[in-house]
Protein backbone atom coordinates (compact mmCIF):
# COMPACT_ATOMS: atom_id res chain seq x y z
CA UNK A 1 0.00 0.00 0.00
CA UNK A 2 2.85 2.33 0.64
CA UNK A 3 3.63 1.82 -3.01
CA UNK A 4 1.13 4.51 -3.81
CA UNK A 5 3.60 7.02 -2.51
CA UNK A 6 3.70 9.40 0.41
CA UNK A 7 1.57 11.94 -1.36
CA UNK A 8 -1.58 10.05 -0.45
CA UNK A 9 -4.11 8.56 -2.79
CA UNK A 10 -3.40 9.78 -6.27
CA UNK A 11 -6.78 8.72 -7.61
CA UNK A 12 -9.76 10.95 -8.16
CA UNK A 13 -11.50 12.31 -5.13
CA UNK A 14 -15.03 11.18 -4.38
CA UNK A 15 -17.40 13.03 -6.58
CA UNK A 16 -20.40 12.88 -4.26
CA UNK A 17 -19.35 12.66 -0.63
CA UNK A 18 -22.25 10.96 1.09
CA UNK A 19 -23.81 12.17 4.29
CA UNK A 20 -21.78 13.75 7.02
CA UNK A 21 -18.50 13.89 5.18
CA UNK A 22 -19.37 17.55 4.79
CA UNK A 23 -15.73 18.52 5.29
CA UNK A 24 -16.58 20.30 8.52
CA UNK A 25 -14.50 19.81 11.62
CA UNK A 26 -15.83 17.63 14.37
CA UNK A 27 -14.89 17.25 17.98
CA UNK A 28 -14.80 14.16 20.11
CA UNK A 29 -17.32 13.68 22.87
CA UNK A 30 -16.66 15.95 25.87
CA UNK A 31 -16.58 13.00 28.25
CA UNK A 32 -13.84 11.25 26.29
CA UNK A 33 -10.94 12.36 28.54
CA UNK A 34 -12.73 10.63 31.38
CA UNK A 35 -12.98 7.40 29.39
CA UNK A 36 -9.47 7.59 28.03
CA UNK A 37 -8.09 8.04 31.50
CA UNK A 38 -10.57 5.49 32.77
CA UNK A 39 -8.16 2.70 33.52
CA UNK A 40 -5.64 4.77 35.45
CA UNK A 41 -8.47 6.68 37.03
CA UNK A 42 -10.05 3.50 38.30
CA UNK A 43 -6.89 2.29 39.96
CA UNK A 44 -6.33 5.72 41.46
CA UNK A 45 -9.86 5.77 42.78
CA UNK A 46 -9.41 2.36 44.35
CA UNK A 47 -6.22 3.52 46.06
CA UNK A 48 -7.93 6.70 47.12
CA UNK A 49 -10.88 4.93 48.65
CA UNK A 50 -8.58 2.44 50.29
CA UNK A 51 -6.55 5.19 51.89
CA UNK A 52 -9.64 7.08 52.92
CA UNK A 53 -11.11 4.02 54.59
CA UNK A 54 -7.94 2.80 56.25
CA UNK A 55 -6.55 5.95 57.79
CA UNK A 56 -9.01 8.76 57.88
CA UNK A 57 -6.95 10.94 60.15
CA UNK A 58 -3.97 11.10 57.76
CA UNK A 59 -5.22 13.20 54.89
CA UNK A 60 -1.90 14.34 53.43
CA UNK A 61 -1.93 11.52 50.85
CA UNK A 62 -5.52 12.24 50.05
CA UNK A 63 -4.73 15.77 48.96
CA UNK A 64 -1.85 14.55 46.80
CA UNK A 65 -4.09 12.03 45.06
CA UNK A 66 -6.81 14.55 44.47
CA UNK A 67 -4.23 16.87 42.92
CA UNK A 68 -3.01 14.08 40.65
CA UNK A 69 -6.55 13.33 39.51
CA UNK A 70 -7.32 16.98 38.89
CA UNK A 71 -4.14 17.40 36.85
CA UNK A 72 -4.95 14.31 34.81
CA UNK A 73 -8.47 15.58 34.16
CA UNK A 74 -7.30 19.05 33.17
CA UNK A 75 -4.70 17.52 30.86
CA UNK A 76 -7.35 15.31 29.31
CA UNK A 77 -9.67 18.26 28.90
CA UNK A 78 -7.02 20.34 27.15
CA UNK A 79 -6.21 17.41 24.88
CA UNK A 80 -9.91 17.11 24.06
CA UNK A 81 -10.10 20.83 23.41
CA UNK A 82 -7.34 20.78 20.81
CA UNK A 83 -8.39 17.55 19.08
CA UNK A 84 -10.65 17.66 16.06
CA UNK A 85 -11.26 15.53 13.02
CA UNK A 86 -12.75 15.81 9.58
CA UNK A 87 -13.38 13.69 6.53
CA UNK A 88 -12.57 15.53 3.35
CA UNK A 89 -11.41 14.49 -0.05
CA UNK A 90 -11.17 10.81 0.76
CA UNK A 91 -8.93 11.46 3.72
CA UNK A 92 -9.69 11.24 7.41
CA UNK A 93 -7.73 13.94 9.15
CA UNK A 94 -7.13 14.07 12.88
CA UNK A 95 -5.48 17.15 14.37
CA UNK A 96 -4.35 17.06 17.94
CA UNK A 97 -1.77 18.38 20.38
CA UNK A 98 -1.41 21.66 22.26
CA UNK A 99 2.33 22.25 22.36
CA UNK A 100 3.32 19.73 19.73
CA UNK A 101 0.71 20.00 17.03
CA UNK A 102 0.11 16.80 15.18
CA UNK A 103 -1.97 16.39 12.08
CA UNK A 104 -2.51 12.88 10.86
CA UNK A 105 -4.12 11.96 7.59
CA UNK A 106 -5.50 8.54 6.83
CA UNK A 107 -6.34 7.92 3.17
CA UNK A 108 -9.64 6.09 3.31
CA UNK A 109 -8.59 3.79 0.50
CA UNK A 110 -5.93 2.32 2.75
CA UNK A 111 -8.19 1.43 5.65
CA UNK A 112 -8.25 -2.31 6.10
CA UNK A 113 -10.91 -2.52 8.75
CA UNK A 114 -12.84 -0.30 11.13
CA UNK A 115 -13.45 -1.38 14.71
CA UNK A 116 -15.77 0.06 17.31
CA UNK A 117 -14.43 -0.60 20.79
CA UNK A 118 -16.25 0.11 24.03
CA UNK A 119 -14.48 -0.18 27.32
CA UNK A 120 -16.53 -0.82 30.44
CA UNK A 121 -16.58 2.84 31.43
CA UNK A 122 -17.41 3.89 27.88
CA UNK A 123 -20.38 1.54 27.90
CA UNK A 124 -21.70 3.10 31.10
CA UNK A 125 -21.52 6.50 29.43
CA UNK A 126 -22.82 5.30 26.07
CA UNK A 127 -19.58 6.13 24.28
CA UNK A 128 -17.38 4.16 21.92
CA UNK A 129 -13.94 4.38 20.38
CA UNK A 130 -13.43 4.10 16.65
CA UNK A 131 -10.22 2.40 15.55
CA UNK A 132 -8.92 2.30 12.01
CA UNK A 133 -6.70 -0.49 10.90
CA UNK A 134 -4.09 0.58 8.41
CA UNK A 135 -1.82 -1.92 6.75
CA UNK A 136 1.70 -1.91 8.05
CA UNK A 137 0.92 0.36 10.97
CA UNK A 138 1.48 -0.96 14.45
CA UNK A 139 -1.01 -0.31 17.19
CA UNK A 140 0.20 3.26 17.60
CA UNK A 141 0.14 3.97 13.89
CA UNK A 142 -3.52 3.38 13.20
CA UNK A 143 -5.98 6.18 13.66
CA UNK A 144 -8.34 6.25 16.58
CA UNK A 145 -11.19 8.47 17.50
CA UNK A 146 -11.79 8.21 21.22
CA UNK A 147 -14.50 8.69 22.05
CA UNK A 148 -17.71 9.28 20.17
CA UNK A 149 -21.31 8.63 21.06
CA UNK A 150 -22.05 4.99 20.26
CA UNK A 151 -24.66 5.74 17.61
CA UNK A 152 -22.36 8.31 16.08
CA UNK A 153 -19.47 5.83 16.03
CA UNK A 154 -21.63 3.16 14.38
CA UNK A 155 -22.80 5.61 11.76
CA UNK A 156 -19.27 6.80 11.08
CA UNK A 157 -18.10 3.22 10.78
CA UNK A 158 -20.76 2.53 8.15
CA UNK A 159 -19.81 5.70 6.32
CA UNK A 160 -16.12 4.91 6.34
CA UNK A 161 -16.78 1.42 5.10
CA UNK A 162 -18.96 2.75 2.33
CA UNK A 163 -16.32 5.30 1.39
CA UNK A 164 -13.60 2.70 1.41
CA UNK A 165 -15.72 0.17 -0.45
CA UNK A 166 -13.63 -2.19 -2.47
CA UNK A 167 -14.78 -3.88 -5.65
CA UNK A 168 -16.19 -7.34 -5.23
CA UNK A 169 -12.91 -8.97 -6.11
CA UNK A 170 -11.31 -7.26 -3.19
CA UNK A 171 -8.32 -5.37 -4.47
CA UNK A 172 -7.42 -2.46 -2.27
CA UNK A 173 -6.44 0.21 -4.74
CA UNK A 174 -8.02 2.06 -6.29
CA UNK A 175 -11.50 1.83 -4.82
CA UNK A 176 -14.04 2.69 -7.40
CA UNK A 177 -15.81 5.66 -5.99
CA UNK A 178 -18.97 4.99 -7.90
CA UNK A 179 -19.73 2.10 -5.62
CA UNK A 180 -19.25 4.24 -2.58
CA UNK A 181 -22.27 6.36 -3.29
CA UNK A 182 -24.70 3.76 -2.02
CA UNK A 183 -26.60 4.98 1.00
CA UNK A 184 -24.68 3.76 4.01
CA UNK A 185 -27.55 4.32 6.38
CA UNK A 186 -29.69 1.83 4.52
CA UNK A 187 -30.34 -1.19 6.70
CA UNK A 188 -28.59 -4.12 5.16
CA UNK A 189 -29.76 -7.67 5.06
CA UNK A 190 -27.90 -9.69 7.66
CA UNK A 191 -27.51 -13.39 8.20
CA UNK A 192 -26.35 -14.76 11.53
CA UNK A 193 -23.53 -17.24 11.13
CA UNK A 194 -22.25 -17.99 14.55
CA UNK A 195 -22.62 -17.23 18.23
CA UNK A 196 -20.25 -18.69 20.77
CA UNK A 197 -21.84 -20.73 23.54
CA UNK A 198 -21.30 -19.01 26.87
CA UNK A 199 -20.99 -22.35 28.65
CA UNK A 200 -18.39 -23.71 26.27
CA UNK A 201 -16.03 -20.75 26.22
CA UNK A 202 -14.65 -20.93 29.80
CA UNK A 203 -14.08 -24.68 29.46
CA UNK A 204 -12.34 -24.19 26.15
CA UNK A 205 -10.10 -21.45 27.52
CA UNK A 206 -9.13 -23.61 30.50
CA UNK A 207 -8.25 -26.40 28.07
CA UNK A 208 -5.63 -24.28 26.32
CA UNK A 209 -1.97 -24.22 27.25
CA UNK A 210 -2.17 -21.22 29.57
CA UNK A 211 -5.41 -22.50 31.04
CA UNK A 212 -3.80 -25.83 31.81
CA UNK A 213 -0.88 -23.99 33.41
CA UNK A 214 -3.22 -22.16 35.73
CA UNK A 215 -4.98 -25.38 36.68
CA UNK A 216 -1.70 -27.17 37.36
CA UNK A 217 -0.33 -24.29 39.41
CA UNK A 218 -3.57 -24.02 41.35
CA UNK A 219 -3.65 -27.72 42.15
CA UNK A 220 0.06 -27.77 43.01
CA UNK A 221 -0.19 -24.81 45.35
CA UNK A 222 -3.26 -26.26 47.00
CA UNK A 223 -1.50 -29.60 47.54
CA UNK A 224 1.63 -27.89 48.83
CA UNK A 225 -0.42 -25.84 51.24
CA UNK A 226 -2.21 -28.97 52.41
CA UNK A 227 0.96 -30.95 53.04
CA UNK A 228 3.13 -28.27 54.55
CA UNK A 229 0.28 -26.84 56.51
CA UNK A 230 1.31 -23.26 55.90
CA UNK A 231 -0.03 -21.03 53.19
CA UNK A 232 3.18 -19.00 53.08
CA UNK A 233 5.04 -21.41 50.78
CA UNK A 234 2.74 -20.67 47.85
CA UNK A 235 3.46 -16.96 47.97
CA UNK A 236 6.29 -17.03 45.38
CA UNK A 237 3.97 -18.58 42.80
CA UNK A 238 1.21 -16.08 43.25
CA UNK A 239 2.48 -13.32 40.92
CA UNK A 240 2.95 -15.80 38.06
CA UNK A 241 -0.41 -17.41 38.67
CA UNK A 242 -2.01 -13.99 38.83
CA UNK A 243 -0.42 -12.96 35.56
CA UNK A 244 -1.59 -16.06 33.73
CA UNK A 245 -5.04 -15.75 35.23
CA UNK A 246 -5.19 -12.16 34.03
CA UNK A 247 -4.34 -13.33 30.52
CA UNK A 248 -7.09 -15.90 30.66
CA UNK A 249 -9.51 -13.34 31.95
CA UNK A 250 -8.62 -10.94 29.16
CA UNK A 251 -9.21 -13.64 26.65
CA UNK A 252 -12.54 -14.56 28.19
CA UNK A 253 -13.50 -10.91 28.40
CA UNK A 254 -12.57 -10.37 24.77
CA UNK A 255 -14.16 -13.45 23.32
CA UNK A 256 -17.31 -13.66 25.38
CA UNK A 257 -20.44 -13.50 23.29
CA UNK A 258 -18.63 -13.53 19.95
CA UNK A 259 -21.23 -13.16 17.25
CA UNK A 260 -20.51 -13.40 13.54
CA UNK A 261 -22.99 -11.98 11.09
CA UNK A 262 -22.79 -11.83 7.33
CA UNK A 263 -23.91 -8.42 6.12
CA UNK A 264 -23.77 -6.67 2.82
CA UNK A 265 -20.61 -4.79 3.64
CA UNK A 266 -18.73 -7.79 4.97
CA UNK A 267 -18.51 -10.04 7.97
CA UNK A 268 -19.57 -8.31 11.15
CA UNK A 269 -18.04 -9.45 14.36
CA UNK A 270 -19.11 -8.48 17.85
CA UNK A 271 -17.66 -9.70 21.09
CA UNK A 272 -16.79 -8.77 24.63
CA UNK A 273 -18.09 -9.07 28.15
CA UNK A 274 -17.04 -5.77 29.68
CA UNK A 275 -15.07 -4.26 26.84
CA UNK A 276 -17.15 -4.65 23.70
CA UNK A 277 -15.69 -4.69 20.22
CA UNK A 278 -17.51 -4.49 16.92
CA UNK A 279 -15.57 -5.11 13.74
CA UNK A 280 -16.43 -5.32 10.11
CA UNK A 281 -14.18 -7.42 7.94
CA UNK A 282 -14.53 -7.09 4.22
CA UNK A 283 -14.07 -10.34 2.36
CA UNK A 284 -11.58 -8.64 0.04
CA UNK A 285 -9.40 -7.63 2.97
CA UNK A 286 -8.83 -11.11 4.32
CA UNK A 287 -5.19 -12.10 4.11
CA UNK A 288 -5.51 -15.57 5.54
CA UNK A 289 -7.93 -17.79 7.42
CA UNK A 290 -6.59 -20.17 10.01
CA UNK A 291 -8.39 -23.15 11.53
CA UNK A 292 -6.76 -24.26 14.78
CA UNK A 293 -7.51 -27.58 16.41
CA UNK A 294 -5.51 -28.09 19.62
CA UNK A 295 -5.00 -31.69 20.67
CA UNK A 296 -7.16 -31.46 23.78
CA UNK A 297 -10.04 -29.96 21.84
CA UNK A 298 -10.01 -32.54 19.08
CA UNK A 299 -11.83 -35.35 20.94
CA UNK A 300 -14.54 -32.81 21.76
CA UNK A 301 -14.81 -31.83 18.11
CA UNK A 302 -13.97 -28.22 18.88
CA UNK A 303 -11.92 -25.83 16.83
CA UNK A 304 -11.00 -22.20 16.55
CA UNK A 305 -11.29 -20.11 13.40
CA UNK A 306 -9.06 -17.09 13.07
CA UNK A 307 -8.78 -14.51 10.37
CA UNK A 308 -5.82 -12.34 9.47
CA UNK A 309 -6.45 -8.81 8.29
CA UNK A 310 -3.58 -6.49 7.44
CA UNK A 311 -2.98 -3.92 10.14
CA UNK A 312 -2.53 -4.65 13.80
CA UNK A 313 -5.35 -4.48 16.22
CA UNK A 314 -5.00 -1.72 18.70
CA UNK A 315 -4.54 -3.01 22.19
CA UNK A 316 -2.27 -0.80 24.15
CA UNK A 317 -2.37 -2.79 27.34
CA UNK A 318 -1.35 -6.12 25.90
CA UNK A 319 1.14 -6.50 23.12
CA UNK A 320 0.81 -10.27 22.91
CA UNK A 321 -2.87 -9.76 22.25
CA UNK A 322 -2.08 -7.81 19.12
CA UNK A 323 0.06 -10.63 17.82
CA UNK A 324 -2.76 -13.11 18.00
CA UNK A 325 -5.19 -13.26 15.17
CA UNK A 326 -8.78 -12.24 15.48
CA UNK A 327 -10.88 -15.23 16.39
CA UNK A 328 -14.10 -15.37 14.45
CA UNK A 329 -14.90 -18.54 16.32
CA UNK A 330 -13.19 -18.69 19.73
CA UNK A 331 -14.53 -22.20 20.12
CA UNK A 332 -17.05 -24.01 18.00
CA UNK A 333 -17.81 -27.21 16.20
CA UNK A 334 -16.45 -28.09 12.78
CA UNK A 335 -19.88 -27.57 11.27
CA UNK A 336 -19.98 -24.02 12.59
CA UNK A 337 -16.46 -23.40 11.35
CA UNK A 338 -17.36 -24.70 7.90
CA UNK A 339 -20.34 -22.37 7.78
CA UNK A 340 -18.25 -19.30 8.60
CA UNK A 341 -15.47 -20.46 6.30
CA UNK A 342 -17.92 -20.71 3.44
CA UNK A 343 -18.97 -17.13 4.08
CA UNK A 344 -15.36 -15.93 4.13
CA UNK A 345 -14.05 -17.83 1.12
CA UNK A 346 -16.07 -19.17 -1.76
CA UNK A 347 -15.59 -22.89 -2.21
CA UNK A 348 -12.28 -23.20 -0.37
CA UNK A 349 -10.37 -26.40 -1.16
CA UNK A 350 -9.73 -28.88 1.62
CA UNK A 351 -6.18 -30.02 2.39
CA UNK A 352 -6.55 -33.36 0.70
CA UNK A 353 -3.09 -34.08 -0.65
CA UNK A 354 -1.05 -35.69 2.14
CA UNK A 355 2.72 -35.46 2.37
CA UNK A 356 4.74 -38.48 1.19
CA UNK A 357 5.17 -41.20 3.82
CA UNK A 358 8.90 -40.62 4.14
CA UNK A 359 8.12 -37.23 5.66
CA UNK A 360 7.66 -39.10 8.94
CA UNK A 361 11.42 -39.30 9.33
CA UNK A 362 11.65 -35.55 9.26
CA UNK A 363 8.44 -34.74 11.12
CA UNK A 364 7.64 -37.85 13.16
CA UNK A 365 4.85 -36.18 15.09
CA UNK A 366 3.11 -34.05 12.57
CA UNK A 367 3.50 -35.95 9.31
CA UNK A 368 0.07 -37.42 9.87
CA UNK A 369 -1.56 -34.05 9.32
CA UNK A 370 0.79 -32.59 6.73
CA UNK A 371 -1.17 -31.92 3.61
CA UNK A 372 -2.03 -29.21 1.19
CA UNK A 373 -4.26 -28.41 -1.70
CA UNK A 374 -4.86 -25.54 -4.00
CA UNK A 375 -6.93 -24.35 -6.88
CA UNK A 376 -6.73 -21.20 -8.93
CA UNK A 377 -8.15 -19.07 -6.11
CA UNK A 378 -6.88 -20.43 -2.81
CA UNK A 379 -4.08 -22.48 -1.37
CA UNK A 380 -4.50 -24.41 1.85
CA UNK A 381 -1.88 -26.05 4.02
CA UNK A 382 -2.29 -28.14 7.16
CA UNK A 383 0.43 -28.80 9.71
CA UNK A 384 1.14 -29.40 13.38
CA UNK A 385 0.41 -32.30 15.67
CA UNK A 386 -0.21 -30.90 19.13
CA UNK A 387 -2.01 -27.98 17.59
CA UNK A 388 -3.25 -28.76 14.14
CA UNK A 389 -3.36 -25.64 12.01
CA UNK A 390 -4.99 -25.35 8.64
CA UNK A 391 -4.30 -22.11 6.81
CA UNK A 392 -6.14 -20.85 3.75
CA UNK A 393 -4.56 -18.09 1.73
CA UNK A 394 -6.31 -16.33 -1.15
CA UNK A 395 -3.79 -16.41 -3.98
CA UNK A 396 -4.25 -12.75 -4.82
CA UNK A 397 -2.91 -11.92 -1.35
CA UNK A 398 0.31 -13.86 -1.71
CA UNK A 399 3.25 -11.49 -1.38
CA UNK A 400 6.07 -13.87 -2.10
CA UNK A 401 6.69 -17.57 -2.51
CA UNK A 402 9.66 -19.24 -0.86
CA UNK A 403 11.10 -22.68 -1.38
CA UNK A 404 13.18 -23.98 1.54
CA UNK A 405 15.08 -27.23 1.89
CA UNK A 406 16.96 -28.19 5.03
CA UNK A 407 19.72 -30.82 5.15
CA UNK A 408 17.43 -33.60 6.39
CA UNK A 409 14.80 -32.74 3.83
CA UNK A 410 17.44 -32.91 1.10
CA UNK A 411 18.44 -36.44 2.10
CA UNK A 412 14.79 -37.47 2.07
CA UNK A 413 14.06 -35.65 -1.17
CA UNK A 414 11.59 -33.26 0.43
CA UNK A 415 11.10 -29.51 0.39
CA UNK A 416 8.82 -26.91 1.94
CA UNK A 417 7.07 -24.08 0.16
CA UNK A 418 6.02 -20.97 2.07
CA UNK A 419 3.35 -18.59 0.88
CA UNK A 420 3.87 -15.25 2.60
CA UNK A 421 1.05 -12.82 3.15
CA UNK A 422 1.25 -9.28 4.49
CA UNK A 423 2.27 -8.89 8.09
CA UNK A 424 4.41 -10.85 10.45
CA UNK A 425 1.98 -13.36 11.72
CA UNK A 426 0.90 -15.75 9.05
CA UNK A 427 2.39 -17.64 6.20
CA UNK A 428 0.98 -20.83 4.80
CA UNK A 429 3.65 -23.49 4.93
CA UNK A 430 3.25 -26.38 2.55
CA UNK A 431 5.62 -28.64 4.42
CA UNK A 432 7.62 -31.64 3.36
CA UNK A 433 6.49 -32.19 -0.18
CA UNK A 434 8.32 -34.34 -2.66
CA UNK A 435 11.10 -32.23 -4.19
CA UNK A 436 9.70 -32.42 -7.70
CA UNK A 437 6.23 -31.54 -6.47
CA UNK A 438 7.58 -28.62 -4.42
CA UNK A 439 9.31 -27.25 -7.48
CA UNK A 440 6.12 -27.70 -9.45
CA UNK A 441 4.22 -25.76 -6.79
CA UNK A 442 6.91 -23.09 -6.81
CA UNK A 443 6.75 -22.80 -10.56
CA UNK A 444 2.98 -22.68 -10.76
CA UNK A 445 2.05 -20.49 -7.79
CA UNK A 446 3.45 -17.12 -8.90
CA UNK A 447 1.53 -17.39 -12.16
CA UNK A 448 -1.65 -18.49 -10.42
CA UNK A 449 -1.28 -15.66 -7.91
CA UNK A 450 -0.77 -13.16 -10.70
CA UNK A 451 -3.83 -14.44 -12.51
CA UNK A 452 -5.83 -14.20 -9.28
CA UNK A 453 -4.59 -10.64 -8.74
CA UNK A 454 -5.54 -9.48 -12.17
CA UNK A 455 -8.91 -11.18 -11.82
CA UNK A 456 -9.46 -9.46 -8.50
CA UNK A 457 -8.40 -6.12 -9.92
Amino acid sequence: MTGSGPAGPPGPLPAAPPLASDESWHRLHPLSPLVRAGRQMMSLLVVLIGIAVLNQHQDGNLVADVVVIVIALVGGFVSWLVTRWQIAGGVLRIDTGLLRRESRRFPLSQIQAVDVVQTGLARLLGLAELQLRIAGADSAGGGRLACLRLAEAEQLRRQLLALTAVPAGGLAVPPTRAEAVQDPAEPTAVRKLFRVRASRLPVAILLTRSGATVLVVAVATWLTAQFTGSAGVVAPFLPVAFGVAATLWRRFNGEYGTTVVAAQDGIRLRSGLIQRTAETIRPGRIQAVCLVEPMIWRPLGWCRLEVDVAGARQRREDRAEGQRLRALIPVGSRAEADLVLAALLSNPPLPSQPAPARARWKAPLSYHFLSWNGDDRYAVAARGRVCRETTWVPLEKVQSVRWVQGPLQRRLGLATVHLDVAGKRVSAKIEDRDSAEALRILAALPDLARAARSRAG
Partner: protein
Amino acid sequence: MIDPGGPPSLGRAESGPGEPEVSWLRPSPLLLRARRIEVAAVTVPAAIIGGVAGQFVSAAVGIAIAAGVVLAGLVGERFLARRVASWGYAERHDDLMVRRGVLIRRLSVIPYGRMQFIDVTAGPLERALGLATLRMHTAAAASDARIPGLESGAAAALRDQLAALGEAQAAGL
Protein backbone atom coordinates in the same frame (compact mmCIF):
# COMPACT_ATOMS: atom_id res chain seq x y z
CA MET B 1 27.96 -35.87 4.81
CA ILE B 2 25.62 -33.39 3.26
CA ASP B 3 25.68 -33.22 -0.44
CA PRO B 4 25.36 -29.59 -1.45
CA GLY B 5 24.08 -30.65 -4.83
CA GLY B 6 23.40 -28.18 -7.53
CA PRO B 7 21.34 -25.10 -6.93
CA PRO B 8 17.62 -25.64 -7.11
CA SER B 9 16.63 -25.03 -10.66
CA LEU B 10 13.23 -25.07 -12.18
CA GLY B 11 14.65 -26.04 -15.51
CA ARG B 12 16.17 -29.22 -14.16
CA ALA B 13 12.92 -30.38 -12.68
CA GLU B 14 11.18 -30.19 -16.04
CA SER B 15 8.08 -29.29 -14.14
CA GLY B 16 6.50 -25.98 -15.02
CA PRO B 17 4.37 -25.98 -18.11
CA GLY B 18 6.61 -24.34 -20.67
CA GLU B 19 8.87 -22.86 -17.99
CA PRO B 20 11.80 -21.32 -19.78
CA GLU B 21 15.28 -22.09 -18.55
CA VAL B 22 16.24 -19.64 -15.85
CA SER B 23 19.56 -17.90 -16.28
CA TRP B 24 21.06 -17.12 -12.90
CA LEU B 25 23.06 -14.00 -12.30
CA ARG B 26 25.65 -14.07 -9.55
CA PRO B 27 27.00 -11.53 -7.12
CA SER B 28 30.42 -10.07 -7.81
CA PRO B 29 33.44 -12.30 -7.09
CA LEU B 30 34.57 -9.52 -4.78
CA LEU B 31 31.89 -10.68 -2.35
CA LEU B 32 34.05 -13.66 -1.46
CA ARG B 33 36.96 -11.37 -0.77
CA ALA B 34 34.74 -9.17 1.43
CA ARG B 35 33.57 -12.18 3.38
CA ARG B 36 37.13 -13.44 3.75
CA ILE B 37 38.25 -10.10 5.11
CA GLU B 38 35.35 -10.19 7.56
CA VAL B 39 36.34 -13.64 8.79
CA ALA B 40 40.00 -12.61 9.04
CA ALA B 41 39.03 -9.47 10.92
CA VAL B 42 37.35 -11.64 13.54
CA THR B 43 39.82 -14.54 13.57
CA VAL B 44 43.13 -12.69 13.82
CA PRO B 45 42.29 -10.49 16.83
CA ALA B 46 40.57 -13.46 18.50
CA ALA B 47 43.66 -15.60 17.97
CA ILE B 48 45.96 -12.87 19.34
CA ILE B 49 43.79 -12.20 22.39
CA GLY B 50 43.30 -15.92 23.05
CA GLY B 51 46.99 -16.59 22.60
CA VAL B 52 48.04 -13.78 24.93
CA ALA B 53 45.49 -14.86 27.53
CA GLY B 54 46.77 -18.44 27.24
CA GLN B 55 50.34 -17.26 27.98
CA PHE B 56 49.27 -16.67 31.56
CA VAL B 57 48.73 -20.42 31.96
CA SER B 58 51.63 -21.62 29.87
CA ALA B 59 53.21 -20.86 26.51
CA ALA B 60 51.95 -24.13 25.02
CA VAL B 61 48.35 -23.39 25.97
CA GLY B 62 48.60 -19.95 24.43
CA ILE B 63 49.95 -21.28 21.15
CA ALA B 64 47.33 -24.05 21.11
CA ILE B 65 44.48 -21.57 21.58
CA ALA B 66 45.80 -19.29 18.85
CA ALA B 67 46.28 -22.22 16.47
CA GLY B 68 42.79 -23.52 17.25
CA VAL B 69 41.19 -20.18 16.49
CA VAL B 70 43.12 -19.83 13.25
CA LEU B 71 42.12 -23.37 12.25
CA ALA B 72 38.47 -22.59 12.97
CA GLY B 73 38.79 -19.50 10.81
CA LEU B 74 40.25 -21.55 7.97
CA VAL B 75 37.48 -24.14 8.22
CA GLY B 76 34.94 -21.31 8.22
CA GLU B 77 36.57 -19.99 5.09
CA ARG B 78 35.92 -23.28 3.28
CA PHE B 79 32.20 -23.05 4.05
CA LEU B 80 32.27 -19.40 3.12
CA ALA B 81 33.29 -20.10 -0.45
CA ARG B 82 30.34 -22.40 -0.94
CA ARG B 83 27.92 -20.04 0.75
CA VAL B 84 29.02 -17.16 -1.43
CA ALA B 85 28.81 -19.34 -4.52
CA SER B 86 25.25 -20.32 -3.66
CA TRP B 87 23.90 -16.79 -4.07
CA GLY B 88 22.12 -16.13 -7.28
CA TYR B 89 19.27 -14.12 -8.69
CA ALA B 90 17.27 -14.21 -11.85
CA GLU B 91 15.00 -11.60 -13.34
CA ARG B 92 12.02 -13.22 -14.92
CA HIS B 93 9.22 -11.59 -16.81
CA ASP B 94 6.97 -10.96 -13.81
CA ASP B 95 9.06 -11.74 -10.80
CA LEU B 96 12.50 -11.86 -9.34
CA MET B 97 13.99 -15.08 -8.04
CA VAL B 98 16.69 -15.13 -5.39
CA ARG B 99 18.40 -18.28 -4.21
CA ARG B 100 20.89 -18.80 -1.42
CA GLY B 101 22.15 -21.16 1.24
CA VAL B 102 24.16 -24.36 1.31
CA LEU B 103 22.96 -26.24 4.34
CA ILE B 104 19.46 -24.83 4.22
CA ARG B 105 18.74 -23.90 0.65
CA ARG B 106 16.23 -21.21 -0.09
CA LEU B 107 14.66 -19.92 -3.23
CA SER B 108 12.34 -16.92 -3.09
CA VAL B 109 10.05 -15.69 -5.81
CA ILE B 110 9.00 -12.06 -5.42
CA PRO B 111 6.56 -10.63 -7.94
CA TYR B 112 7.62 -7.16 -9.06
CA GLY B 113 4.14 -5.87 -8.28
CA ARG B 114 4.51 -6.88 -4.65
CA MET B 115 7.65 -4.91 -3.92
CA GLN B 116 6.94 -2.17 -1.44
CA PHE B 117 10.34 -0.61 -1.42
CA ILE B 118 13.89 -1.45 -2.32
CA ASP B 119 16.97 -0.29 -0.51
CA VAL B 120 20.62 -0.45 -1.30
CA THR B 121 23.02 -0.54 1.63
CA ALA B 122 26.79 -0.65 1.77
CA GLY B 123 28.90 -1.04 4.90
CA PRO B 124 32.40 0.40 5.18
CA LEU B 125 34.07 -2.77 3.91
CA GLU B 126 31.59 -3.15 1.05
CA ARG B 127 32.13 0.49 0.12
CA ALA B 128 35.88 0.00 0.07
CA LEU B 129 35.44 -2.85 -2.41
CA GLY B 130 32.77 -1.00 -4.39
CA LEU B 131 30.00 -3.41 -3.41
CA ALA B 132 26.45 -2.95 -2.21
CA THR B 133 23.59 -5.08 -0.89
CA LEU B 134 20.18 -4.83 -2.47
CA ARG B 135 17.21 -5.59 -0.29
CA MET B 136 13.64 -5.96 -1.45
CA HIS B 137 10.72 -5.52 0.91
CA THR B 138 7.21 -6.73 0.41
CA ALA B 139 4.29 -6.26 2.77
CA ALA B 140 5.09 -9.66 4.23
CA ALA B 141 7.79 -9.57 6.87
CA ALA B 142 8.85 -13.11 5.99
CA SER B 143 9.72 -12.40 2.37
CA ASP B 144 13.35 -11.53 3.16
CA ALA B 145 14.92 -11.16 -0.24
CA ARG B 146 18.35 -9.62 -0.54
CA ILE B 147 21.21 -9.82 -2.94
CA PRO B 148 24.59 -9.10 -1.40
CA GLY B 149 27.79 -8.24 -3.19
CA LEU B 150 26.50 -6.40 -6.21
CA GLU B 151 28.84 -3.83 -7.72
CA SER B 152 27.48 -0.46 -6.63
CA GLY B 153 26.69 0.65 -10.17
CA ALA B 154 24.93 -2.62 -10.94
CA ALA B 155 23.03 -2.42 -7.64
CA ALA B 156 21.77 1.07 -8.41
CA ALA B 157 20.80 0.04 -11.93
CA LEU B 158 19.00 -3.05 -10.67
CA ARG B 159 17.24 -0.98 -8.03
CA ASP B 160 15.95 1.48 -10.59
CA GLN B 161 14.92 -1.29 -12.92
CA LEU B 162 13.07 -3.18 -10.16
CA ALA B 163 11.41 0.01 -8.98
CA ALA B 164 10.20 0.74 -12.50
CA LEU B 165 8.92 -2.81 -12.92
CA GLY B 166 7.27 -2.64 -9.52
CA GLU B 167 5.53 0.56 -10.37
CA ALA B 168 4.26 -0.85 -13.65
CA GLN B 169 2.81 -3.93 -12.00
CA ALA B 170 1.88 -2.55 -8.59
CA ALA B 171 -0.98 -4.27 -6.85
CA GLY B 172 -2.82 -3.46 -3.64
CA LEU B 173 -2.64 -5.54 -0.54
